[in-house]
């Protein structure tokens, strides 16, 4: 288990007279064993700094870091290095040793941990088999593709069987296909080996594909932290909203909305689609009750952690009075529902005349 208690990191300003810079401020965060936490935020938000605080590559200016109950700040150099062996780390640029073979890279942390040459070889081979690179053991990093290099990086980080894996933008240097492979591997690391993963990324798709929880950073602070589905369904902070938008893309953009209005002269209404299956049944019943028909004008529904999430925009057809009654009924239900259940980005809204009903 990882516990950050009110950690802050202030870098002394570079050069004479430069102002100190606070990269991380007042962050408290707990990651339970076996979980996968994604930390997202814009560039410069302090994500990497926060991650580096976890294994004390960066010592916090204030606050405490506890890993499995041990306060890293209370350890001496030797003890700290021992703890680091129980925390693997994976990097955006892989950071493999060019002077060593693939096997040599993976064996390196084992040798540091005092494992014999033969023992290190055997264990390294085993880990390489786990990441599917046994065949490449004798090659050098520059002979491998980006995806293979990152798998070596992961194998190296896992060699000493750590309970925690820290990933700093582990897929950001990779193409989408290779990213998928690496994410699949990380998922296996979590499910098959039970390793706790803390992953820094600026891609919400990575969070959606892999994480149980997500934490959002902005300006060095933690502005949101919660279950991935909940945060996707109901982002609270504007920065979170931007990130969720980037992955969900369920609402028509402004230009698309103009086109929709031109194409559908009737009333438009956007309704959320969530893991609450009863909601669409209610919608269907309400349409029938008021004798309102619809055509789908726009829809964006994706899966988040195995459950549907998104919205559909319907163009409504019927007598004005019926449509009004339907919308009133829908809004009433939404208002009641809103307090208790998932509703992406607030709630239902009527698009006609640019007026939000919710």
């Amino acid at each position, binding site marked *: 288990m990882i516990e950050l208690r009110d950690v802050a990191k202030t870098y002394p300003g570079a050069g004479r007279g430069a102002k100190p810079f606070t990269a991380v401020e007042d962050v408290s965060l707990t990651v339970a064993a076996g979980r996968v936490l994604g930390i997202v935020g814009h560039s410069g938000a302090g994500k990497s700094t926060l991650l580096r605080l976890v294994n004390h590559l960066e010592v916090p200016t204030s606050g405490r870091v506890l890993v499995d109950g041990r306060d890293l700040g209370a350890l001496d150099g030797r003890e700290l290095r*021992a703890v*680091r062996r129980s925390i693997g*780390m994976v990097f955006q640029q892989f*950071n493999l*040793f060019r002077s060593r073979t693939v096997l040599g890279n993976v064996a390196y942390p084992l040798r540091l941990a005092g494992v014999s040459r033969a023992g290190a070889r055997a264990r390294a081979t085993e880990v390489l088999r786990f990441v599917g690179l046994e065949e490449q053991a004798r090659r*050098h990093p520059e002979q491998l593709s980006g995806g293979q290099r990152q798998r070596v990086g992961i194998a*190296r980080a896992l060699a*000493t069987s750590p309970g925690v894996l820290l990933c700093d933008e582990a897929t950001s240097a990779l193409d989408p296909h290779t990213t998928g492979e690496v994410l699949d591997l990380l998922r296996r690391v979590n499910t098959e080996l039970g390793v706790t993963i803390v992953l820094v990324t600026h891609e919400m798709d990575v969070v959606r594909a892999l994480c149980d929880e997500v934490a959002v950073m902005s300006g060095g602070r933690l502005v949101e932290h919660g279950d991935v589905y909940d945060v996707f369904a109901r982002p609270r902070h504007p920065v979170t909203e931007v990130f969720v938008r980037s992955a969900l893309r369920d609402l028509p953009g402004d230009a698309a909305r103009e086109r929709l209005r031109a194409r559908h002269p009737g009333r438009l209404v956007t309704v959320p689609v969530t893991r609450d299956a009863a909601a669409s049944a209610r919608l269907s019943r309400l349409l029938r009750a008021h004798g309102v028909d619809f055509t789908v004008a726009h829809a964006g529904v994706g899966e988040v952690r195995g459950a549907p999430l998104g919205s559909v925009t319907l163009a409504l057809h019927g007598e004005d009075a019926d449509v009004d009654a339907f919308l009133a009924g829908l809004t009433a239900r939404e208002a009641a529902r809103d307090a208790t259940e998932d509703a992406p980005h607030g709630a239902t809204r009527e698009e006609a005349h640019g007026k939000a009903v919710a």
Partner: protein
Amino acid sequence: MHADWHTFWPKVVDATGETVYMVLVTLALSALLGTGVGLALHTTRKGGLLPSRLVHTVLNALINVIRPVPFIIAIVALSPVTRSVVGTMIGTDAAVFPMVVVATFGVARIVETNLLTVEPGVIEAARSMGAGPLRIVVTVLIPEALGPLVLGFTFVLVALIDFSAVAGTVGGGGVGNLAMTYGYLRFDTSVMAVSVAVLIVLVQIAQLLGNLLARKVLRR
């Protein structure tokens, strides 16, 4: 007047032997000392493994003072020190002393520069695995920079052949001394030609060996 080649060839062989001796001894000592200073420079820099502004500034200043001094001036300037350390001011050992002093600081700068080619991320990776500073120097920093280091040392080796010839002209022995005493003072152009040829061959051999070794290290 021309040299008697029968008695002269053994002198060429001896002089070449002396040059090789001066160069190799200087290389060994300056590599050892210079690598130490270079590592100290690299590790004490800001954000380094063992940052120390004081040590870094002092070493840096020392290098910047010594390096621009022309070698021939350094020999003269150091001669009192040479005499007290080596006991004499002539001969190969007397030449080796200023060569080592000057080469050490040259090597230090070359080592520091080449260590800077090692990506900080790689060092960070080693730290994240629980490696301490000394361990990182030995198992990461030096192996990762070995290719450029070999080329840097080759450069030093070639420069030392040049240095040894300069030292030879002012009483240091070796091929430089040969060229001076027979070629220059006795106006013997053929001896001068032989001396130059020997120096060229030595430089070629040094460069070739260095390139071969670097290629092996760099796997290209």
